[in-house]
């Protein structure tokens, strides 16, 4: 019988590193394509240059995924000052939902998004309405504790249902398809799609926040909850919609995570940390900043991994710490008037 303690153990750092180490390595080997022909002098230098361009490109593409991890987290904190510790586990939950949907219906993971996104959004709405709304108040601690508990419950629930064996979503031929950008420079179609989706998600959130009535309601409820009520907004409903939107983004991130590499129930907390780091690097409250934060984290990890395969996660953390030390407000903080 797996215990709660065992689930919580994945918080330990060594365990984290072990589990993430291989998963997030940019899939350079696959995307790099056939090696360029060996030659001399200038050609060698150009090969080295291509190698670095490749590393940075792959980092940027992974960064899109991190930005998606971060966007949902940032949205929730921005609207209701709730730090969702279970965010990473919800991403993994979305991956398993996608697995079940894809296997049951015999459809591809990207098609499964049509079902996974609304399912996760519904889970988000219910979670906020029945549980998290009760924890909100002047104190930041209750939501923190409740979502921490939720994280343990989700991890152990998934462990019971799906075992600790790692699984992967199969997306078919698109997984190995590549596009040749230049001599010796190839990108995978899937990472490219993933990146394009990440940019679209951030742009979509930006649009919702600043161009729609829903976004106005989000910002109004975040600014002055009591005043928002006086305008006829039911904050419980507004917050539940924000969580639904957050988990819709989580669903997309979860599916791409699951197509990219193997996953198992213990991977949530590491996704949470990457999400947090991207949010802090980018600056709280800025969606485009979150995208930039994800890209910086992705590139730092890719460069670290290229220098030494053991430095991948370390390099990401160091980049995060440098930003935190030099610009604690993040690179693109939202200017609050």
């Amino acid at each position, binding site marked *: 019988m797996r215990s709660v303690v065992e689930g919580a153990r994945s918080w330990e750092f060594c365990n984290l590193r072990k589990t993430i180490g291989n998963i997030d390595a940019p899939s350079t080997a696959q995307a790099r394509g056939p090696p360029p022909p060996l030659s001399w002098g200038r050609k060698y230098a150009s090969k080295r240059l291509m190698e670095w361009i490749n590393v940075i490109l792959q980092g940027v593409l992974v960064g899109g995924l991190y930005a998606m991890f971060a966007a949902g987290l940032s949205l929730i904190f921005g609207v209701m000052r709730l730090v969702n510790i279970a965010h990473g586990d919800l991403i993994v939950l979305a991956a398993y939902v996608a697995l079940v949907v894809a296997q049951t219906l015999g459809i591809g993971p990207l098609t499964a998004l049509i079902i996974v996104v609304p399912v996760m959004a519904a889970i988000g709405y219910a979670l906020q309405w029945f549980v998290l709304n009760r924890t909100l108040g002047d104190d930041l601690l209750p939501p923190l504790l409740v979502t921490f508990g939720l994280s343990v419950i989700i991890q152990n629930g998934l462990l019971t249902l799906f075992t600790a064996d790692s699984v992967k979503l199969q997306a078919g031929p698109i997984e190995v398809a590549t596009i040749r950008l230049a001599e010796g420079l190839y990108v995978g179609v899937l990472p490219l799609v993933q990146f394009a989706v990440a940019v679209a998600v951030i742009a979509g959130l930006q649009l919702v926040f600043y161009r729609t009535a829903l976004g106005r309601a989000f*910002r*109004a409820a975040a600014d002055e909850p*009591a*005043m928002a009520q006086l305008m006829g907004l039911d904050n419980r409903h507004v917050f539940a919609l924000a969580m639904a939107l957050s988990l819709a983004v989580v669903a997309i991130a979860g599916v791409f995570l699951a197509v990219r590499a193997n996953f198992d129930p213990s991977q949530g907390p590491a996704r949470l940390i990457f999400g947090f780091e991207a949010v802090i690097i980018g600056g709280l409250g800025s969606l485009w900043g979150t995208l930039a934060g994800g890209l910086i984290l992705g590139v730092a990890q890719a460069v670290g991994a290229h220098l030494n395969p053991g430095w991948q996660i370390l390099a990401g953390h160091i980049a995060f710490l440098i930003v935190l030390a030099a610009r604690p407000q993040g690179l693109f903080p939202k200017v609050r008037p």
Partner: protein
Amino acid sequence: MPEVLLAVRDLVAFYGDFQALFGVSIEVGRGEAVAVIGANGAGKSTLLKSIAGLLHARSDAIVFAGEPIGGMPAFAVAARGIALVPEGRGLFPSLTVEENLLVGGQLGRPGAWNLRRIYELFPALGQRRKLPSTALSGGQQQMAALGRALMANPQLLLCDEISLGLAPIVVREIYARLPAVRAEGTAIVVVEQDVVQALAAAQHVYCLQEGRVALSGAAKDLTREAIAAAYFGV
């Protein structure tokens, strides 16, 4: 007296163990302007907050358009047509002026007020509609708060100390707009420390003193002495 729109009966209100209102009763007729005056801490703001649904109240202590609304959540009260301009304005700082107005109108209640009419009423807001609400002067912020409340097309507008912290000329300018609001059939309750301003704006006056109604009557009938006595409790 026109048909009763709002009836507050024997309202009590507490902040924790502290009792702020001791059985307050007031009535507001449809389209009427009523002033509630009183010294600091007399319970004026508490009365408005209770009516707006921000404080707990017994269900039948507040009856609006024939329906008991005491203890209803603020968003449900707002949907029934009561809008509050709170003390300190309470604009949304991260929203532009126009977005503040749009949030005020998000219930979509039908009526005379819309963005165009608000900008006609307060031209200063129209010129600054794309600015963040924090970029406005104090008087303009008060106009925005008033406009935001009007966007809900309320049957009853509650104004909590709209003169607070504003220059007299600005206060007069804002009060000069209230007849236009009443012309649309909206009843108004103004809470004021500025007695002269309140008496000029209202037909009926209630004076609160330490959580009780100390004096009530038609604005034109009240003598200066009676008001001073009720206001200061001397």
